[in-house]
């Protein structure tokens, strides 16, 4: 699965957990406003229902997204109005 950190990141630390196991740990994550994208990363997920937890300790935010890995090839996560929001897509998100 591909996870894209999209809008609202500003020099943030970001951790991503799949079913409780940390799969991504990045610091200084910042949205490129030209694109609406901060970071795009491939993560390994098992088949079936998956709990993907995204933590942003620098903003004291955390949210778990329940997805079906067979339906969801792409997860986009943004910070909007002080909340983590996610969108899913079978097609890869494109940026311009």
């Amino acid at each position, binding site marked *: 699965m591909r996870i*894209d950190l999209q*809008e609202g990141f500003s020099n943030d630390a970001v951790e991503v957990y799949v079913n409780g196991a940390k799969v991504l740990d990045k610091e200084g994550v910042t*949205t*490129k*406003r*030209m*694109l*609406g*994208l901060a970071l*795009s990363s491939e993560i390994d997920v098992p088949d079936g229902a998956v709990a993907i937890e995204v933590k942003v300790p620098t903003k004291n935010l955390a949210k778990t997204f329940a997805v079906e890995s067979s339906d969801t090839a792409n997860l986009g996560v943004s910070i909007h109005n002080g909340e983590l929001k996610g*969108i899913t*897509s079978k*097609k*890869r*998100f*494109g*940026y*311009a």
Partner: protein
Amino acid sequence: MARQTTTAATAPTSISGQYEGEMTSPTSGLGLLDLRIDVDKRYPNSPIMKRVSGDFYQLNKITVPGSPPKVTRVYRESWIVNNPLVKTLNGKVTITGKVTYWKGIHPSSTLKITMSVPQPGVTPSCIVSFTRPGGQAAVYNCTKKSDSFRSLNLEIDVCKSINVEPVLPLCSTTGHPTKPAGVPQRMLNIEESYREAGVQVNIRPERTVIDDSIATFETWSDAELHSAMETYFSQIAGPWPKWEMWGILAGSYEEPAVGGIMFDAAATFGGAGKAPERQGFAVFRKHEWFDALVAGTPASDDQAAAMRQFLYTWVHEAGHAFNFLHSWDKNRPDSLSWMNYDWRYDNLNGADSFWSNFLFRFDDEELIHLRHGDRSAVIMGGDPWASGGHLEAPPGAEHLVAPPGAMASVEGELPIELLVRSKEYFEFMEPVAIELRLRNLFADMPLTLDSRLNPEYGGVVIYIRRPDGRIIEYAPVMCKLAYTSPKQLTPLLPGQEPGPDRYSEEVLISYGRYGFYFDEPGEYQVRALYQGAGDLLIPSNVHRLRVGTPLTRELDKTAQDYFSYEVGMSLYLEGSRSPHLETGFDLLREMSEKHKNSMLGAKLAMTVANSLTQSFFNLEAGDKGKEKLKLRQTHKAEPKEALKLTEAAVDVFEKTDEKALNLSYRQLVSQRVDCLVQLERPKQAVKELGELHKHLESTGVNQPVLNQISNLAETIGSTPAHKIEEYAGRHRLWERVRTHDRLASVAGIAELAGVKRPRTVSKKTRTTTSKARPAAKKTAKKSAKKAQKR
């Protein structure tokens, strides 16, 4: 693939479009108006925005004997009229409305346009008047020049690795089954998409193929794209902003999910971080969006979708270069615009909803920006991306609005150059002075210009862009009213040493009416605008300089006391013994001694020493109270002390090989020569002038300047002491060197030799400050009378 013609028929009798014409009143030919009227249907599939807008230019007309006048136009400012009232009666059209300027404070004014109802085959023309209560109307006579509102050139280069057709998009609006019901069928390319939006895009026919075939090269970064633009963009040279844009069709971006990018923006937004911005963009042909792209008519839905996405990406990226943000960044996530993402729209409105409803256009707010926005917010290389006083500016960017005049730019080649320069790095708290230089660029014609370059006289305006992006106008503490000081600059003949063709003046811009201007570490940009006596408008280059961070914690603490009124005014006055500025003087003196081995200390020592080289008079209460205020000498000149204070500064300047400090070094030596002459020590004065000569020679200073120094040394060395004393009483070299007046030392020498020269008008118009001496005032009065007689 052969380029297909896609241009639709223009509405034959529309009012709307771009007009242009010169001012007819109150001063015929002084100004020019670029007018955009948007009140009726000008082009198929192009919405009406109900706006009138325009840009004012000043026309510089320099008479060349035996030839037509040399005319250049300099942009001044822009305005808009929202929802104008349009009336048609008896074949006449009248358009009226309230004028809103994008920048600055203006008196309320109204616009009135009168014209005949357009007839087929007749180019429309109109009379445009701007009136304000109690003021004379400014009238322009304009003629329609285009059915678009703006026009620009787009240069497109392509990388060798992907140089196969189609390089550019050509897309049918109905070529894909997912389309809006009733969408008019038409073929769209970049030009046609923008023509509908109201901008005429002319794609330059030349296309450079960039060799990217090196085996180790895979993907492009922003910095590499910017570097490629600087290498290959044929229009990159010369002054910006201008209506020129560069696009590159490249292979892949470093982040494979990116199909295109306008890389020319600040690093904080993810761009290359190099001003001027919004000059270029890239489209990445190897992105998976374009996998199914084929030349010719698409034969499948995938191919049609790829072509549609190809067109979208080109128009979208060029849109960023016009200063568009993404739709959701403008709180319009539901906008059906070239600037939205399809998947973002679909996420809010359902699968395929974007392409089922998108009409291949920008939204209304974007169209207003594109057609009628403030010129500097739209033009390439103008306001930085995501800033500017325009409709697209995001909340919080208001402080980035530039003052009127800051974005003045030249169209065409000016016969006069205004150069701003200084050293590039200043220590924290080091006084910032810039050199302003006028230069005659004519090959065969002398020009007479007003040489008062200090903003105090109002002929020059200086703009400073601070590290936070805010552009502010430098406001001098004093405003001086004086006669013009004409100076003839003669053209430089082949083989002639530079000198007679130019005139320089150093201006201290650290402190002004609103305090300190360089009080934060970081990068600053400085730009000046020469207005002379009002008949010219010459913008300078943009000069970059950096202010360093405090080198010690102690220096950082000192900043609290340093950035004060007393210190600021002491610097502004180039030293003062006024009791009101005593704390400032004391701090400067203390700092100049403490930091005497640095440039900061050297500059401060010069300021303090300057106030020691002359007596100071102050108004003080007489014996019988305040009614009897009397001018008293409170400080005697202390040339010995001034020399002692600047000893270390000489070493500091000696050790630097920075050419930009030559003028300051020359000032320092001139200041010391003044003191040495006062102290009747001509030998030492000659020695220091010799050392200055040697130093300047080693940095490649022009021969005329070196000659002045050696002539002065020779004259001081051979003049009897009493004559030197007489000279010293009336002249201060330092002030003359500050204005870089080539004739200054010549005049001084002539007087030393006993030749009396009339004093120039400008010298006696010096504002009376606490430094003025009664004797000098008397001389000034006499000279003023003489000047009036002349």
